[in-house]
């Protein structure tokens, strides 16, 4: 949690260097929408090691980070390439028969979606546990001893509980923020807010830096206050191949391509070399794709309309 005021604008390089350390628990959140691939790639470039990677849906970003050797453990609820299939780099680190020589199995700690949401909520609300009606007669509690039962104090039996998750750092992408880190977002909200409030440090990555007056014109749109943000990174197209509602489309073609790339360890390494290690930053990544590529991903406009808050003096 940041106590400072004033501009928190940093480069991605500086933000990762300052706030993501070896051994940290890192949550790059965003449910399909607004996943900070730019942050994931910078963590790879800076060669962070022994990270515990938390995310509801590890997605390609964690497949790439696992392939790059950043992770020792995954905390998640759904492990796949949405709409396509498996995360093959992660499978190679979770299926003993697929393990390469010298590699070790990733530690795995898994929940359901509601359970992962509940973990962040408990962390954000400073609760010792979050109660929910999942897990009954599922084998999940048998393999994850952190999923436990709690007795209702109203005599109506037991329900299930998950413990708080307080990442060392949460990295969330959104449409816009001011330089103090007041973040506004629309479209799928995922659990960006809950993960950010649960985390010890927060990096907010946005498509646009706007004047504070833009934020203050629509305060109900703010999901994360600058109060809890440590660094603001201005990173256009920073979510690609994920997407930003109203900004650019999900690059489904790349999600499909990754399936082929990631099935082969050597191809995966080559991809990481070409698109991560050999590039200095996200601007170079965007330039390498070229403007026409992103133009094709740009939707036509669908404006929200404005509402009136009224000026009360």
């Amino acid at each position, binding site marked *: 949690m940041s106590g400072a005021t004033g501009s928190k604008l940093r480069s991605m390089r500086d933000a990762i260097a300052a706030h993501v350390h070896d051994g940290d628990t890192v949550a790059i959140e965003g449910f399909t929408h607004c996943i900070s691939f730019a942050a994931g790639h910078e963590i790879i470039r800076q060669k962070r090691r022994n990270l515990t990677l938390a995310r509801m849906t590890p997605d390609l970003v964690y497949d790439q980070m696992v392939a790059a050797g950043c992770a020792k453990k995954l905390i998640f*609820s759904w492990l796949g390439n949405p*709409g396509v299939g498996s995360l093959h780099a992660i499978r190679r680190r979770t*299926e003993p028969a697929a393990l390469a020589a010298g590699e070790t199995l990733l530690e795995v700690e898994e929940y359901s979606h509601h359970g992962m949401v509940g973990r962040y909520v408990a962390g954000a609300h400073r609760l010792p546990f979050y109660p929910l*009606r999942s897990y009954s007669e*599922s084998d999940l509690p048998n393999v994850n001893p952190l999923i436990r039962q709690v007795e209702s104090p109203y005599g109506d039996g037991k329900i299930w509980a998950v413990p708080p998750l307080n990442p060392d750092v949460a990295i969330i992408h959104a449409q816009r923020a001011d330089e103090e880190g007041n973040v506004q977002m629309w479209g799928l909200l995922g*659990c960006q807010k809950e993960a950010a409030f649960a985390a010890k440090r927060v990096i907010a990555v946005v498509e646009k830096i706007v004047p504070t007056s833009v934020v203050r014109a629509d305060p109900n749109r703010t999901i994360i206050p600058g109060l809890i943000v440590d660094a603001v990174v201005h990173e256009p197209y920073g979510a690609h191949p994920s997407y930003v509602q109203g900004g650019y489309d*999900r690059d489904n073609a790349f999600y499909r391509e990754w399936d082929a790339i990631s099935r082969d360890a050597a191809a995966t390494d080559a991809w990481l070399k070409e698109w991560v290690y050999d590039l200095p930053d996200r601007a170079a990544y965007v330039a390498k794709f070229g403007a026409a590529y992103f133009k094709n991903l740009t939707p036509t406009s669908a404006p929200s309309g404005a509402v009136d808050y009224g000026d009360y003096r």
Partner: protein
Amino acid sequence: MSEQKPASRNELMVVAAARALKGKRVCFVGVGLPNIAVNLAKRTVAPQMELVYEAGVFGASPARLPLSIGDPTIVTGSTATVSMHDLFGLYLQGGRIDVGFLGGAQIDKYGNLNTTVIGDYTAPKTRLPGSGGACEIAINAKEIMVIMRQSTRSFVQKLDFRTSPGHLGGAAASATLRKEQGWGGNGPSVVVTDLAVYGFNSDGEMELRSIHPGATLDEVKGSIGWELRVPANVPETPAPTTEELRLIREELDPTGAYV
């Protein structure tokens, strides 16, 4: 009217699933075949059905078929887009979902499902995606419909891992437990495969209801890992109508990417 190609087995699945949604009100949509089935139902037997996506969308009106469950097209023009906390807490656990669709790598005769691992959990032969929302959909949606292709590898005597509970070890115990523990849902009601449609009998055991055109009883029984209950007279699944096939082929999946 031009000559239509006969229905494929995927099309038979989608049409049978869509028909099972007749009159349903609020449906939790998965990607792929369930998504097409639900959109077909909305255009035929359930025009007032509301589509809910676990990514946080209520009343979606997708302008294209989304590849992923979190595609931007499900947001634009939807009635409400909410956090996942609200979606899972207020809508699903809160008891507002009538039908949830599930699939899986393995199903047993009581409709219990495995989407976690093949083999031993700690040293899996195949690491599957895991629960996602499946475990809580199975518990909280009032009714569960399953769509999956059948084979002796997927329709098994014993699951390697029970991710999502169905009728557990049988209907009586399951109903008692669900009531005692305050589960919101009643468990699976329909299973639609590429070969047939199944319901559940009073013991909570899967029972053949109809066989798709072109499939045989031997084929059906031969691709199931337990002794299937087969009633005396099993009708043929009514063939897709010209209009149902047209909707799938021309409107819902024109590139044939899914069906």
